[in-house]
């Protein structure tokens, strides 16, 4: 496999160089890429735009012949679809009729009743027209397009549309082409309207179909101003016979001459319809697109740890899309014309090409070390993934090539597009996306740099606030020690109900979803009820394919008239009901119907002759010439689709219209009047005749205005309800808000927002190092080694250990002992004896150790917590011993009288210790007296303070008395961490060993004389007890490297170390249960609680959740760039803070990051959880309370005036909802407001 390896290496190297190139010259490369995309897409301009609009072609009528099927050479501009006979010829008779002269006695119905009534005679005329010449007799019946059934879904239209006969539509179809029904119809408009579909419709309506002109041009209305009724009689002819048509034209013209008509009649228009995308095809298409978007969503969701997720997701999508465009463009350039439906195959192309490579690239680049240069990161990330990218691409190309050999043209074309698309996608990934990624990463680095710069330069960090991106900047502090409360705080309080409802709505986005669902349902209903829509289509599909006969209403023989199919008596309730009044009115035109084609309707002509031509109401214009153009372009397809004839990819020929002008006399209008016509309509009100037309406009305008006003009012009310009143003057009134201003809930309960002033506990002279609490008491230890015990409730200082501390000498600047007793008080194992004697008396003859103090700290590495072994630390035991011995040897009596508090089996070091100050092996290079070793770890349980020192000594102090109760010096390595649980103490040492101690409490028998009398009994450990601390087990090599974290809970001890592992021990038998491996850096934070959840964070920025019972890793996330500094869990989430000043909140069950809070520089180390939803973090001189559910800042409590530069490093949450944090040399006790307590 050397070839493979070499290939791999070469590919990797090439990618590395390419990454360097991309990251070095981002702008030119992006420009180049864009140019190439545009160049490749240029050929697309020549492609015809997709559309479904019909195309027209006009020929002359005179020499028209049906085009043949074969293309006949070059015929000029003749389109390629103009072949073969059309589906149908459309011959329209355009009728314009008016009652003239208009009489004031006429009612508005007269405008259209008698003109519409004339349609029956016209129909009769047309139907009976026979042209007879030498070749034979032709009638309409022979020429017209014979139609069969309507679609099964259109049974409702059976009464109005012809079936089984000629397709001849006119307004007369409303009345089954029967004059009697028309005459007996009391309300014509209602009859017309009752067939109209409700709601919005896209295809042509029945009214359009029957009238043949758009609705507003018909003039069939009570408010028509022109009083001209226009309609057409549409004949659909199956074959073309020029002579019949011209004779019909001549006949009609002769009967109803149009005086001023100058319509051109020499052109026929052929209209070609494209293939339509019907609903049935649309649904699968939409589904594929939905799946596509889901795919893109789920893919881009995985992009993480970048500056701008949206930007990169957009870049990824752009990459794929433009690669597809490039592919089509290139294919077109090389002569391949796409024949596939682009919209259909597009989603599949995207899915085949995929976004995977892009994601892999991002992940790989992001996971490179953060501290590298951007160029190198990009290059390294690219080269890491180069092999897999190449492999995947080769595989995909192979698969697609296999597809190419299926020899199916469609699949071949698809594969060709896919291959070119893949290659161009690879090109774009390499050039476009990589460059965008480098820009993004650089932006992130710059942002980091900007944030870190002030701290590194030693400048005071910016004021807290401006850097918090998640919330509005907190208002300027009105005064120290006050709390600024922001509006989101109400969320945490007992909310008023209306706000809860609103929040609920907002959280679940109910309104949005309802609207969406409503829209979808509406569209669905629309699509379903549309006459040319889905339902009829589907029904058509079924019935069309059914081999069994259609048994519906098709039993009737083909009717000669074509339209009058009586489905039954109930077909038209209006007409049947009005049968009774009908006979009362004599039908005036019986003779019209009986006329043959030779007997022309003579009565029409006299009327026309009588009509005064000086009132030419009827005018013919150019727009009437091709009146069908004003119809919807779906007019003809929908008409034909009712009979299941598709016009897709076919054409129809529209013949020139035959104009017919009708003038009716007022007398005739009155004669044809229905008795209800006069009383039914409102008075004509002629002078406001133009008003009603505009009235609807006014109505709409008024309604719109009213709705707008209502909306504004509603919004205003909502605003008033939701927004605080002092919205404008934010920050001024916050601190001053009084009870009355706050929103109250139903019980009149208003959250008391008091001004929290933190209680400052002063007394330490140096920075506080350790902090421990058991809820009642609080122990703190400063760098000077002084331990103070405080009452956690009141903040009183109870005890100081040692009794007389050190103070800083103002003159020399070095440490000076105020009282020598402190040395021995601290170092002595058994202070009981001395306690009985007055201390000054005992130690007044003590040597003056001040000259021995070596202030030359430079010569020695500073005692660091982790790095320096204790032996090199400040260990002055040897010097002190020498000085002590030469000054005054210890009195043997005193030494002898030391009782041995431990059983005889006491460890030898104690014994040695009692003989003098024989320290464990100590380097003697430093000539300074022994003051004491630093306290590195401290724990407080009950009344006992366990302090672990850098010298490896473990001490137990009485917290109340301040007396040393017990000491253990079994270990020599510094104690880095302590855990005190029940009666066991676990100490982790610097050398990686772990010691388990047992604290025994024995009732003293003979030692009463050593004890002070005035000491109050402590609640947990009686001061009379003799407390011994025994080393029960020492695990020497618990870890290979120093133990950094030690936590104990629920009977388990968990240690984390620099050696990247976490170990779990059982507390009872100190048995190591698990060694958890999974981090790639030292462990920096561990969390374990009573519910046995274990979380660990490491220097690699990873957070692992473990199952303590099985030792398995539950989840593993990379959360931070840099160390994880602190970890806390609640029952639902994990909160971590890192060196990147980010506080991240993770869902505990899924490991998904919920959100993160960007903090200001250098303060994110301390975390605490007060309740399930309240997080407290330490900042620069302040403590912030956060709402965990929303991630909002609730309050910020400022600890002191001069807060700059002093961060809160440790933060302990006490049981009584107070928190304690260190603040330089002071301690700060902050009581969480009572409202917040109520949460639990």
């Amino acid at each position, binding site marked *: 496999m050397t070839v493979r390896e070499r290939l791999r290496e070469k590919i990797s190297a090439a990618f590395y160089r390419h990454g360097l190139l991309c990251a070095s010259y981002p702008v030119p490369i992006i420009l180049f890429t864009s140019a190439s995309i545009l160049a490749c897409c240029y050929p697309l301009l020549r492609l015809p735009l997709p559309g479904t609009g019909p195309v027209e072609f006009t020929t002359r009528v005179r020499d028209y012949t049906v085009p043949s099927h074969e293309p006949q050479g070059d015929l000029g501009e003749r389109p390629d679809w103009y072949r073969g006979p059309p589906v149908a010829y459309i011959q329209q008779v355009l009728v314009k009729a008016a009652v003239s002269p208009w009489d004031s006695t006429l009612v508005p119905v007269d405008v259209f009743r008698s003109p519409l009534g004339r349609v029956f005679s016209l129909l009769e005329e047309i139907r009976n027209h026979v042209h007879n010449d030498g070749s034979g007799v032709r009638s309409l019946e022979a020429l017209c397009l014979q139609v069969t059934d309507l679609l099964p879904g259109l049974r409702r239209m059976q009464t109005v549309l012809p079936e089984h006969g000629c397709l001849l539509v006119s307004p007369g179809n409303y009345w089954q082409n029967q004059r009697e029904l028309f005459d007996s119809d009391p309300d014509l408009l209602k009859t017309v309207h009752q067939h109209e579909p409700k709601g919005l419709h896209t295809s042509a309506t029945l009214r359009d179909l029957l009238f043949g002109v758009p609705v507003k041009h018909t003039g069939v209305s009570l408010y028509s101003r022109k009083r001209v009724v226009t309609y057409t009689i549409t004949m659909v002819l199956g074959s073309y016979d020029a002579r019949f048509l011209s004779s019909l034209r001549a006949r009609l013209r002769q009967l109803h001459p149009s005086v001023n008509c100058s319509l051109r009649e020499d052109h026929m228009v052929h209209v070609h319809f494209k293939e339509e995308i019907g609903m049935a095809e649309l649904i699968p298409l939409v*589904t594929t697109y939905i799946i596509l978007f889901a795919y893109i969503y789920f893919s881009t969701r995985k992009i993480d740890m970048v500056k701008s997720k949206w930007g990169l997701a957009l870049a990824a999508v752009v990459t794929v899309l433009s690669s597809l465009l490039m592919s089509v463009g290139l294919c077109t350039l090389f002569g391949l014309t796409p024949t596939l439906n682009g919209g259909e195959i597009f989603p*599949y192309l995207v*899915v085949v090409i995929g976004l995977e490579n892009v994601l892999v690239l991002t992940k790989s680049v992001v996971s490179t070390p953060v501290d590298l240069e951007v160029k190198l990161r990009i290059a390294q990330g690219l080269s890491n993934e180069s092999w897999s990218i190449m492999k995947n691409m080769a595989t995909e190309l192979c698969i697609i090539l296999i597809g190419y050999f299926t020899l199916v043209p469609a699949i071949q074309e698809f594969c060709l597009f896919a291959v070119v698309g893949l290659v161009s996608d690879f090109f774009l990934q390499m050039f476009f996306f990589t460059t965008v990624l480098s820009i993004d990463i650089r932006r992130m680095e710059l942002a980091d740099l900007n944030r870190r710069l002030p701290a590194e330069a030693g400048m005071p960090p910016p004021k807290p606030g401006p850097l918090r991106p998640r919330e509005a900047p907190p208002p300027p502090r009105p005064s120290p020690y006050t709390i600024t409360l922001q509006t989101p705080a109400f969320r945490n309080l007992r909310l008023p109900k209306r706000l809860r409802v609103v929040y609920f709505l907002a959280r679940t986005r109910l309104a949005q979803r309802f609207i969406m669902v409503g829209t979808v349902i509406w569209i669905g209903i629309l699509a379903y009820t549309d006459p040319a829509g889905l339902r009829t289509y*589907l029904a058509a*599909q079924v019935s069309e394919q059914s081999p*069994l006969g259609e048994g519906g209403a098709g039993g009737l023989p083909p009717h000669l008239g074509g339209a009058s199919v009586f489905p039954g008596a109930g077909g038209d309730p209006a007409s049947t009901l009005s049968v009774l009044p009908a006979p009362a009115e004599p039908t005036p035109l019986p003779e019209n119907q009986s006329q043959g084609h030779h007997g022309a309707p003579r009565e029409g002509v006299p009327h026309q002759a009588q009509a005064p031509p000086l009132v030419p109401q009827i005018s013919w214009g150019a727009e009437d010439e091709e009146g069908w153009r004003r119809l919807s372009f779906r007019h003809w397809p929908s008409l034909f689709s009712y009979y299941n004839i598709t016009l897709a990819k076919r054409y129809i020929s529209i013949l020139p219209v035959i104009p017919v002008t009708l003038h009716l006399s007022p007398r005739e209008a009155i004669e044809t009047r229905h008795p209800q016509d006069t009383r039914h309509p409102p008075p004509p009100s002629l002078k406001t005749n133009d008003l009603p037309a505009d009235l609807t406009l006014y109505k709409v305008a008024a309604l719109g205005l009213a709705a707008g006003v209502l909306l504004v009012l509603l919004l205003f009310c909502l605003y008033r309800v939701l927004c605080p009143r002092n919205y404008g003057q934010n920050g001024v009134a916050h601190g001053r808000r009084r009870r009355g201003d706050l929103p109250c809930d139903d019980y009149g309960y208003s959250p008391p927002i008091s001004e929290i002033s933190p209680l400052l506990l002063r007394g330490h002279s140096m920075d506080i190092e350790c902090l421990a609490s058991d809820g009642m008491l609080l122990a703190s230890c400063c760098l000077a080694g002084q331990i103070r015990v405080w009452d956690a409730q009141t903040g009183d200082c109870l005890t100081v250990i040692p009794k007389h501390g050190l103070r800083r000498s103002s003159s020399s600047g070095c440490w000076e002992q105020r009282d020598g007793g402190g040395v021995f008080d601290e170092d002595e194992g058994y202070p009981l004896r001395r306690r009985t004697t007055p201390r000054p008396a005992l130690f007044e003859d003590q040597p003056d150790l001040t000259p021995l103090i070596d202030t030359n700290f430079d010569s020695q590495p500073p005692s660091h917590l982790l790095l320096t072994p204790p032996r090199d630390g400040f260990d002055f035991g040897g010097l002190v011993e020498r000085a002590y011995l030469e000054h005054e040897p210890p009195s043997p009596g005193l030494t002898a009288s030391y009782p041995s508090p431990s059983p005889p089996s006491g460890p030898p070091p104690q014994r040695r210790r009692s003989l003098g100050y024989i320290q464990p092996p100590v380097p003697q290079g430093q000539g300074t007296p022994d003051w004491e070793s630093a306290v590195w770890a401290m724990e407080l349980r009950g009344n006992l303070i366990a302090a672990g020192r850098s010298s490896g000594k473990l001490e137990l102090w009485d917290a109340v008395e301040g007396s040393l109760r017990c000491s253990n010096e079994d270990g020599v390595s510094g104690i880095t961490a302590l855990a005190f649980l029940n009666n066991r103490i676990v100490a982790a040492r610097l050398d990686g060993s772990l010691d388990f101690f047992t604290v025994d409490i024995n009732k003293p028998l003979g030692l009463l004389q050593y004890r002070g009398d005035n000491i109050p009994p402590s609640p947990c450990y009686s001061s009379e007890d003799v407390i011994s601390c025994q080393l029960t087990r020492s695990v020497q090599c618990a870890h290979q490297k120093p133990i950094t974290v030690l936590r104990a809970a629920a009977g388990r001890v968990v240690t984390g170390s620099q050696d990247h592992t976490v170990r779990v021990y059982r507390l009872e038998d100190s048995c190591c249960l698990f060694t958890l491996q999974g981090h790639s850096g030292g462990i920096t934070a561990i969390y374990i609680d009573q519910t046995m*959840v274990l979380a660990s964070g490491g220097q690699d920025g990873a957070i692992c959740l473990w199952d303590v019972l099985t030792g398995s890793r539950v989840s593993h996330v990379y959360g931070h760039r840099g160390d994880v500094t602190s970890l806390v869990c609640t029952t639902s989430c994990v909160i971590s803070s890192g060196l990147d000043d980010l506080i991240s909140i993770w869902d505990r*069950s*899924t490991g998904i990051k919920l959100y993160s809070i960007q903090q200001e520089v250098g303060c994110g180390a301390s975390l605490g959880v007060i309740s399930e939803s309240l997080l407290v973090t330490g900042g620069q001189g302040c403590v912030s309370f956060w709402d965990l559910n929303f991630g909002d800042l609730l309050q910020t409590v400022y600890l002191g005036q001069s807060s700059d530069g002093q961060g809160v490093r440790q933060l302990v949450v006490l049981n009584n909802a107070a928190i304690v944090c260190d603040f330089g040399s002071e301690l700060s006790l902050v009581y969480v407001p009572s409202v917040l307590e109520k949460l639990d």
Partner: protein
Amino acid sequence: MADSTVVSDQQRSGSGQTDPSRGTYIAVITNRSTTLVIRGFMLFSIGVFLALVLNLLQVQRNVTLFPPDVISSIFSSAWWVPPCCGTASAIIGLLYPCIDCRLGEPHKFKREWSSVMRCVAVFVGINHASAKVDFANNVQLSLTLAALSIGLWWTFDRSRSGFGLGVVIALLATLSTQLLVYNGVFQYTSPDFLYIRSWLPCIFFAGVITMGNIGRQLALYECKLMSEKAHQD
């Protein structure tokens, strides 16, 4: 789609045998049957939806014919087709993770929602191709679809159990379709292989793989949830 119809019938007959294993499955992985029901319902609705959509594709192609007496023409196909497809997909989707669990080899390959979406898209594409693309002859069509289905399995599944189950179910489904057609419940416009279309097994196979993929993903999600809960307790 009529094809998946038959899957359903198949599954219903086969579900009797899988019941005990389902019981243990409940006991092993989920301690609550409600999650199972929810999952089953989700799979069912996915199946119904896919059936309706793919049916439209087939209807356009005039592949299947339902005599109007048998159907009450709610939709273009018989009313029993979508529920049967839904049931089938629910059973398949539950069966796959169960078998993974039984065999003790959890499916690790590409367990992401984006991959599942890709799989569904490819499945729809295969259906699309079978409905719309004009092939020279039926052998070519069947071979192409077979290759595509195997490619689907290789791309998104790659487990032996998935392949075996897919083949078995596809064969059974084809058989039952054959029976249905033979009994005259419905028929094809242009059958080329004893009354039915020869590409049917390929489509069945692809559908089984897809539904199994979805089912596994859902089970994975649930698994995670349950284990987390168990840890909290």
